[in-house]
């Protein structure tokens, strides 16, 4: 099947590997990631204020393009996913906001039909769970990660606000644990998995971010994890920077490894 794909700025730069392994794995699972044309950066964070219109236009353009292609929109980066899904929800529920967006968009040279939230937005993990199915992932695994104790780190962006993201139970999620099981490894459940790593505040108050990230990695370590897996480049950065004893890897890397497509992507 074909889906529209929004990689986001970080996956083009500092987190290239997150992107490459996502593409390779999707291919191995029979999903074609069709990258959007001329996509623009989502802005990194969703600005909740109702009068922030311009900051959400790039997301609306991405959503509209996917709608015109008749495809769901898939993201890998937690931050892009959070921004695009919340923008989509706002377009669906806030008519006043949507009208203002349409006024902006009408001035676009490549003006498109007004977008009203038709596109389905999936995180790559949701794609695996809801479209591909973890059973199919399990069957496609060539090198199961048997015996590995892996701590899934959700952070805040994947789950919250739960009413909008609708990804999983925001307090007791299981999508990443199920993913880890599908790869043959053993998930480690620890309480800090849905706590924030410190996010962008690392640029404002590095100590604060360090404290947050340490709490997370200490909790994972305390519960016997050998590795932390994440979906967000900023989470990974903060965890590594704070001196996590455990290796921090992207979930797509694990997936590519289990599917046996990791070396291929190295060759590129």
């Amino acid at each position, binding site marked *: 099947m074909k889906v529209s794909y929004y990689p*986001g*700025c*970080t996956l083009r*730069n*500092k*987190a290239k590997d997150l992107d490459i392994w996502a593409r390779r794995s999707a291919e191995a699972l029979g999903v074609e990631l069709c990258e959007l044309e001329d996509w623009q*950066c989502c*802005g*990194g*964070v969703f*600005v*909740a*204020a*109702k*009068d*922030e219109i311009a*900051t959400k236009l790039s997301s609306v353009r991405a959503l509209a393009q996917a709608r015109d292609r008749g495809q769901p929109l898939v993201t890998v*980066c937690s*931050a892009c996913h959070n921004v695009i899904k919340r923008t989509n929800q706002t377009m669906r529920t806030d008519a006043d906001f949507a009208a203002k967006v349409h006024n902006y968009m009408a001035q676009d040279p490549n003006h498109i039909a007004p977008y009203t939230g038709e596109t389905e937005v999936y995180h790559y993990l949701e794609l695996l769970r809801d479209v591909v199915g973890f059973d199919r992932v399990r069957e496609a695994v060539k090198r199961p990660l048997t015996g590995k104790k892996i701590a899934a780190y959700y*952070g*805040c962006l994947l*789950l*919250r*606000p*739960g009413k909008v993201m609708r990804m999983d139970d*925001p*307090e007791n999620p299981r999508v990443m644990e199920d993913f880890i099981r599908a790869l043959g490894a053993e998930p480690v459940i620890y309480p800090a998995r849905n*706590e*924030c790593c*410190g*996010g*962008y*505040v*690392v*640029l*404002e*108050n*590095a100590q*604060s971010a360090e404290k*947050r990230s340490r*709490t997370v990695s200490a909790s994972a370590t305390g519960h016997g994890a050998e590795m932390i897996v994440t979906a967000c*480049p*900023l989470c990974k*950065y903060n965890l*590594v*920077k704070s001196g996590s004893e455990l290796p921090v890897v992207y979930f797509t890397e694990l997936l590519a490894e289990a599917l046996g497509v990791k070396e291929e992507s190295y060759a590129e």
Partner: protein
Amino acid sequence: MQNKNERRREQILRISGVNPLKCMRCGKCSATCPSYDEMEYHPHEFVYMVETGDLEPLIHSASIYQCLSCMACVERCPRGVEPGKLIEALRLTVIREKDGNHMTADTIPAVIDDETPQQAIVSALRKYTK
């Protein structure tokens, strides 16, 4: 002065969509806030201060730049008050004013390293500048 304060308060309520009167003062937002120790004023105090219009101390407090936007308070608030959105609206109100930027492009190189993801930089600029 009174008017300016009232205008700010009105804008904060409007752009956040938050109704502080829904708050039942349980303090769960502050119980859940990961940045609690970094803040001088805490989420439940933000809500109360906006409710009563006591904005000056907040505006001059570094607390408003410590929020991680992690939405834990929004998720767990039993009354649906959404303190996180209120804090964001307050911060926007401050940085949109003259000389309100909390961070400039010039200051960025000093706080990043080779590994800093782009996402962190655009996020910080979006949160701290107009």
